[in-house]
């Protein structure tokens, strides 16, 4: 059940926390950005951040159930985009988004980290990240600066 809609200054997605649905609805947004003449690298950066956020909802909020509702509203604003996501899954641990810390890479090859990059990447690429737990829902919003090289 994927519902996507393109509006004058926005693109909305309603889908389930299923790998296939998440991937296809995200692709629909990237296609919408292409139609609005965003550059490949800008589309790729948005895709990266949203893939991390959506995977997090699917894996942690919905614990890989695959049938949880996800709402994503993307709004085109001058100089970038804003995003608002709502899900009905479990709250973030400690009621806040995990602190994405840079990994310690000064280690032997076999001790290099293979995970923990997700929230770090989100933190580096998104601005004004706000998370709120409202009743039984997670609300996450942020902004991305695009179009400045």
């Amino acid at each position, binding site marked *: 059940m994927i519902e996507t809609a393109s509006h004058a200054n926005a693109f909305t997605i309603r889908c389930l926390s299923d*790998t296939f649905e998440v*991937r296809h609805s995200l692709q629909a947004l990237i296609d919408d950005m292409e139609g609005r003449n965003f550059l*490949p*690298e800008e589309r*790729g*950066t948005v*895709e*990266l951040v949203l*893939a*991390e956020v959506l*995977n997090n909802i699917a894996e942690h909020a919905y614990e890989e159930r695959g049938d949880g509702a996800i709402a994503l509203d993307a709004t085109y604003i001058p100089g970038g985009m804003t995003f608002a996501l709502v899900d009905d899954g479990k709250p973030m641990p400690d009621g806040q988004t995990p602190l994405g810390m*840079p*990994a310690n*890479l000064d280690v032997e*090859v*076999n001790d*290099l*980290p*293979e*995970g*923990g*990059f*997700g929230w*770090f*990447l989100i933190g*580096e*690429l998104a601005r004004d990240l706000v998370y709120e737990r409202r009743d039984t829902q997670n609300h996450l919003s942020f902004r991305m600066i695009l179009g400045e090289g």
Partner: protein
Amino acid sequence: MDMTTTDIADARLVKVIDSRIDAAVAIQFKDTLRAVTQGGPHRVVLDLSDVTFIDSSGLGAVVAGMKLLNGDHVLELACLTPVVAKVFKLTRMDTVFKIHADVAAAFPPAQAS
């Protein structure tokens, strides 16, 4: 996950044919990389020119691939597209891997003696 291999001098060039290394293919990536490098040359250069998207799971898979090969092989990377390069730079993984701008840079012509 498709990969093709070409042996050049003392190295094996492994080209990833897929356009994405993400959560959906992370495990396949590791398994395929292991299969195509097993018993091959020590030096492995991974050509990522077709890969336009990588996420944190994909990055984790490339690191896991490096560990998997460690000892028998050394893994280098070539031809990072903009978004892939951005992920490596932001996470500073570009300091861990030897990264070549293109395949030619990974295989400079032998010095005339």
